[in-house]
């Protein structure tokens, strides 16, 4: 077995897995708190990549930024803008498409979610056109270092580290802060949390903000990594990320992150074995098998009630 190739593919899997994981977090957080499959989430991610593209081209960047300081500044700006804008978009979507339906039949918000997804796609398509567009890759995509003769790209390492940092930050936020506690308590029992003085609307809006901001971050990352985006990119990425969230145990943030990486490995693994054409089928087959054997996902809680 070629160790170098294996190492490279592992890095590839971790990189794409990190992107899935970032998107999956949004799915799982929203699901955890209002039990809604937010089908518009994939398109929030897509819009984030377009916002990045718009920002970088407006600032006049075409390609690699050599000066490390400028690079750091532009990167920070890109993440800040994409995450804030997408966070705000998430809050707006929640306010107008989901909140009025909070007590409606369960499937009603699912339909509006898909409606919102169409709306986002069409808006992006009207502004930036229906064809794929280039995103300036401000980090040198070829820069790499060698591990035992195998080139490892800095960009990949950057993405993996960044994603993990964001996930850790999220865990700390949810676990250690007052707002995080409010989120957790709302997720467990909305009415009880309300009685305890938690502002439900703010908490849910906050959840959407964070989830969408993470999707925005994933959008930036995707732009840097692939240098390309298209207005239909949200659907498939969203589907995979949602699968990741379920695979990990929906509602569980650690599970979502784990699920993202697992899907990255499944995809890259099927390519490694020469079954790229089947990778989608493999992902979903493994998902079905996992759920048959572990009905609540990899890290999902066992349910008290059984029917």
């Amino acid at each position, binding site marked *: 077995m070629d160790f170098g190739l294996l190492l490279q593919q592992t890095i590839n899997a971790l990189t794409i897995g990190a992107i899935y994981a970032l998107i999956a977090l949004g799915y799982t957080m929203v699901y955890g708190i209002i039990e809604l499959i937010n089908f518009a989430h994939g398109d929030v991610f897509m819009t984030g990549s377009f916002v990045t593209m718009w920002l970088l081209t407006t600032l006049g960047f075409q390609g690699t930024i050599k000066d490390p300081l400028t690079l750091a500044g532009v990167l920070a700006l890109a993440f800040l803008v994409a995450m804030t804008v997408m966070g705000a978009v998430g809050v707006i979507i929640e306010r107008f498409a989901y909140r009025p339906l909070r007590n409606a039949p369960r499937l009603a918000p699912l339909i509006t979610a898909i409606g919102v997804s169409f709306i986002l796609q069409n808006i992006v398509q009207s502004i930036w056109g229906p064809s794929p567009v280039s995103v300036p890759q401000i980090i040198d995509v070829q820069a790499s270092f060698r591990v035992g003769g195998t080139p490892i790209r800095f960009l990949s390492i950057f993405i993996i580290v960044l994603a993990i940092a964001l996930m850790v930050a999220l865990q700390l936020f949810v676990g250690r802060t007052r707002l995080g506690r409010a989120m957790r308590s709302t997720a467990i029992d909305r009415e009880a949390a309300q009685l305890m003085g938690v502002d439900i609307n703010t908490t849910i809006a906050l959840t959407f903000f964070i989830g969408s901001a993470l999707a925005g971050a994933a959008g930036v990352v995707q732009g840097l990594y692939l240098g390309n985006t298209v207005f239909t990119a949200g659907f498939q990425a969203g589907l995979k990320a949602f699968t990741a969230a379920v695979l990990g145990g929906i509602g569980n943030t650690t599970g979502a992150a784990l699920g993202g990486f697992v899907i990255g490995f499944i995809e890259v693994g099927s390519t490694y074995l020469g079954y790229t054409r089947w990778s989608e089928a493999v992902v979903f087959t493994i998902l079905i098998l996992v759920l048959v*054997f572990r009905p609540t996902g990899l890290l999902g809680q066992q349910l008290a*009630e*059984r*029917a």
Partner: protein
Amino acid sequence: MSGASTPARPLVLRTIGLTKQFGGLVAVRDVDFEIPEGAIVSLIGPNGAGKTTMFNVIAGLSDPTSGLVEFLGQRMIARPERSWLEPVVWVVPAVVVWALSYAAWLAGLPLVLGQLLVLVGLGVLIATLITAVVRPPWYGLLLVRFGIFKSARPNEMVLAGIGRTFQNIRLFANMTALENVLVGMHGQLRANGLDAALRTARHNREEVQGRSEARRWLAYVGLRGREDELARNLPYGDQRRLEIARALASRPRLLLLDEPTAGMNPSETSTMTALFGKIRSELNLTILLIEHDMRVVMGVSDRVTVLDHGEKIAEGSPDEVRRDPRVIEAYLGKGSVA
């Protein structure tokens, strides 16, 4: 302490060493418990004593960690072991057939044979899957053989003769009272989808008879004339009654009532208590009652079992239990003991 009441009467239900753990928390610990036929037995205890957990295990809603439940002398529940193996059992026969088809291909046998075997394998897979879903008794035996036994499902408990109500009413809110009772009669009726689609004689007969029987059940609990109201539009007390009618419609031998008078005013409570007596005497039913209201418990029960922190601390007639020092201690400070 044990065998305090008349041993002549056969047991309807018996639990042996029943234990249920949630993570590190032991909700029920090693409880032996018996219900003789025709009795009204109450299960009491302070909040968090494990009453509802016990109830859910008996009703088949959750698997015990260890111990077993016998209903009418039949073993209903065993500890689930290696239940994740069950899906493996479904797939193995089909995989064996497919392996045969591959072997046939390798051996150079005619292609048609291999293809036929592939189809047979598919058929086997479908058959095993359907078997797993329908769960005929021999499938259960097979699971025991492989050490993959899973406990009885709630519906199997019902078919065996255990009916129940819920602590927080769980009616089918968007169905009418009559339909709720008809659902309760599910196990009594036999018409399947094909009967319904073709409107066979069986379907028509059962619908007519079922409806009139359902009406009688509603009338029995005092809901005459409310047949076509949506369950969610009924007043609270009537919803409780409807739940009982629905449970009775399954013609149980043992009726489990989970706090049936919770949230009722005294006059409603006394009507309800009267109903229990009527059910027992007229329908010859055994009743297991979880109740907070001590007046109800002491007034209606033949036997009382007291749980505290998941353990059985006392058992006997209401008077015996009332005087038991451990019971007084468990309830101390609450002033609940009348």
